[in-house]
């Protein structure tokens, strides 16, 4: 049996994920622990179905890259800049304090200075993949704890760069390493960053527009992946973290109209690869080493988690995080991370670490990652209910980009709605599927996102879960109905108002459960009719009243006909014809009413002054 074939491996991974994750979720342990355990089971120390854990881990790290890209898309440069204080302050303090304490402990326990330093640096980092996945899963990213956690993780990702640069200097295998600081490498790195910034700002949007204009969704998806992979490779070539490069690319595209489309396109890849990453971490737990010296490794892992938790707790408190969120913030970042694997790998090849140390530390980190989902369960079960009584946290900080209104379609119709809302201080998330049209709108400084509003993933990316109102203004009657069904099914809380083409479309909208609609030509035509009446000698007031009466009658008739919606067409035609006659009569009697009664008789009544009253 060819058990190393790609398809067979894919079969094993997918099967493990499909079996383990739902069970884990059902038991309340969350998806991450499910993946980790699935990895343990199928890995070399479980059933031994898959052996090349390290290769897979390397491949699956691309999931982390996509994750950071997606997070970058959520953060435009302005908001990133606004976060500089927590990133540098909280993040910097966490890394430095944790690393110093761990290094001192290492030296106390008899490690050499350089070994202790590298180990401490690696262990000070948390798992971006793990922490962000857990925070996202529980929808905690928008909370202060999520916000601070993210800041710390971001600083750690940046800190990896100098760490990777320092390790070779500490090594003994100096053959392939130049002594001293590598200025050329620094220049290269800066050059690449400049390339990404310039490319992201000026080149990418026109290219995305061209690709979107082809109307082929898979090409757009392919380009999205290509973009992330290319950025990752480019950044990796100059020795920077791939995840950080992808994050940068994401940030630069966060302002673009393609943000939501990009986000929803990479979503499935991101999810699968992250799952694979966790499976790979599970597989790479070397139970041989663990069983050889279980108490040492378990002690190290638990000690590491306890130490990091305490430091994070203290820092979070110092930083003024709300008390009820402190434990969450500390626990979610308490594990060792994937960058430790990378650092320790480099440390071994450059001769800083002997193999035994590398193996022990990698198992320790992997094991510490296993504790986090469990600690989160304990937190949710025992700590959170008690803390819930503390005062409510301040308003969500990260949510300021999620608007309460989504406008689907920004053509002639949607634009007017958007402008009216904007004039009243209400900003909407706007979705439009014509890239050429978007280009024009952008020039008028409308914030419009590219994509087909009838796609569930795009709606979700546009914030349909938090929005209150969806305005359907797309120029596709069938599309509008599909969109309504989609929203009813997935976002039942979302109120819908919809543009209607004609009476038939109104009936279809009513059938699909939307009762706030506007026939797109109706109001304009009535206004025009009013003008016509004025040209024919009606006073402005009388023309206006006639228009009002016509509108009311028309709306009434429409509902009358709708009651016979499921009957023969002829019936509806008859009702409609009858109604037209009736309207004529109403108008006529009104006419008499206004001229005769209001004028003559009121004058008479006023002078009559009955004294019985």
């Amino acid at each position, binding site marked *: 049996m060819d058990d190393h074939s790609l398809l067979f491996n894919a079969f094993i991974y997918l099967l493990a994920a499909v079996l383990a994750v739902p069970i884990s979720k059902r038991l309340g342990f969350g998806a991450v622990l499910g993946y980790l355990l699935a990895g343990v089971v199928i890995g070399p120390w479980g059933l031994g179905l898959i052996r090349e854990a390290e290769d897979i881990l390397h491949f699956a790290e691309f999931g982390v890259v996509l994750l950071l890209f997606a997070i970058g898309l959520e953060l435009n440069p302005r908001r990133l800049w606004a976060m500089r204080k927590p990133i540098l302050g909280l993040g910097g303090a966490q890394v430095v304090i944790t690393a110093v304490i761990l290094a001192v402990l290492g030296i106390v326990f008899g490690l050499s200075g350089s070994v202790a330093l590298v180990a401490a640096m690696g262990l000070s980092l948390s798992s971006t993949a793990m922490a962000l996945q857990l925070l996202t899963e529980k929808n905690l990213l928008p909370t202060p704890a999520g916000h601070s956690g993210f800041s710390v993780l971001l600083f750690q990702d940046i800190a990896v760069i100098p760490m990777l640069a320092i390790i070779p200097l500490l090594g003994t295998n100096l053959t392939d390493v130049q002594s001293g600081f590598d200025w050329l490498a620094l220049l290269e790195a800066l050059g690449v960053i400049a390339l990404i910034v310039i490319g992201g700002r000026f080149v990418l949007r026109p290219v995305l527009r061209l690709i979107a204009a082809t109307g082929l969704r898979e090409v757009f998806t392919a380009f999205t992946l290509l973009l992330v992979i290319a950025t990752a490779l480019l950044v990796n070539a100059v020795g920077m973290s791939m995840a950080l490069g992808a994050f940068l690319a994401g940030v630069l595209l966060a302002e673009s109209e393609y943000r939501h489309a990009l986000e929803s396109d990479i979503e499935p890849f991101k999810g699968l690869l992250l799952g694979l990453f966790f499976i790979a971490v599970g597989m790479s737990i070397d139970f041989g080493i663990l069983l050889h010296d279980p108490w040492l490794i378990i002690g190290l892992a638990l000690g590491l988690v306890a130490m990091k938790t305490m430091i994070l707790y203290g820092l979070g408190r110092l930083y003024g995080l709300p008390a009820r969120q402190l434990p969450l913030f500390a626990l979610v970042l308490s594990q060792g991370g994937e960058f430790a694997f990378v650092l320790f790998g480099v440390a071994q090849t450059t001769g800083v670490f002997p193999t035994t140390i590398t193996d022990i530390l990698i198992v320790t980190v992997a094991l510490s990652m296993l504790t986090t989902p469990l600690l989160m369960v304990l937190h949710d079960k025992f700590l959170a209910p008690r803390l819930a009584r503390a005062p409510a946290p301040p308003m969500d900080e990260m949510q300021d980009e999620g608007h309460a209104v989504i406008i689907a379609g920004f053509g002639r119709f949607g634009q007017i709605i958007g402008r009216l809302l904007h004039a009243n201080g209400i900003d909407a998330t706007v979705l439009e599927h014509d890239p050429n049209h978007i280009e024009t709108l952008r020039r008028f400084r409308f914030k419009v996102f590219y994509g087909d509003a009838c796609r569930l993933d795009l709606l979700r990316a546009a914030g349909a879960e938090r929005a209150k109102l969806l305005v359907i203004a797309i120029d596709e009657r069938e599309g509008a109905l599909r969109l309504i069904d989609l929203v009813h099914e997935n976002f039942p809380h979302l109120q819908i108002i919809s543009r209607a083409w004609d009476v038939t479309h109104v009936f279809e909208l009513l059938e699909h459960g939307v009762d706030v609609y506007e026939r797109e030509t109706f109001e304009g035509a009535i206004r025009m009719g009013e003008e016509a009446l004025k040209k024919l000698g009606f006073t402005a007031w009388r023309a206006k*009243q006639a228009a*009002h*009466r016509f509108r*009311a009658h028309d709306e009434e008739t429409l509902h009358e006909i709708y009651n016979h919606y499921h009957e023969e067409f002829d019936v509806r035609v008859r009702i409609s014809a009858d109604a037209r006659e009736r309207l004529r009569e109403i108008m006529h009697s009104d006419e008499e009413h206004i001229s005769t*009664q209001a004028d003559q*008789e*009121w004058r008479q*009544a006023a002078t009559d002054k*009955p004294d019985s*009253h």
Partner: protein
Amino acid sequence: MANSPNIVVYFAHLAIEQSVINRVLCDAVRDIRHVNFRDLLELYPDFFIDVKKEQEVLRDADLIVFQSPIYWYAAPAIFKHFQDTVLLRGFAYGPGGTALQGKDFLFAVSTGAPAEDYRPGGIHHYAFEDLIRPIEQTARFCGMQFLPPLVLHGGHSLPSEEIEAHAARYRRFLEDYQPGNNR
């Protein structure tokens, strides 16, 4: 006929979202079971009043309430427009115009200025009851009993306890109302 009396409260305010007093007053009576609360500007923002509908509502009511602030010595314009379009000859007065005969009418009104401003020599020069004569006379002309108006003066500077107390009085009046007991 139903046991509990029918009351219709017509209300209008151009900026209810900014008015504390009228919000409190509305909240005080809106949920009373036999009160039909009709916010005219919410129903007819473009002044196109459904005359047939409102004539029916008036016909069914034992007590008709106009609740409003005072703008320029009168209720907001839509009340006048309501009178002009709904209280027609043959309905409210004239031959066969007996639909409102014998009903009670209450004006529940609030002013920004204190009571002492409404007197000769005060900045509003006339007594308040003189300024609202047109409404009083409209009610009489249609054969209705004009009940003593429920006035809250000085809204610009009133402590919230006083507003609450007034709202409670207003509510109690509508709750306890019986046709014919108020002459």
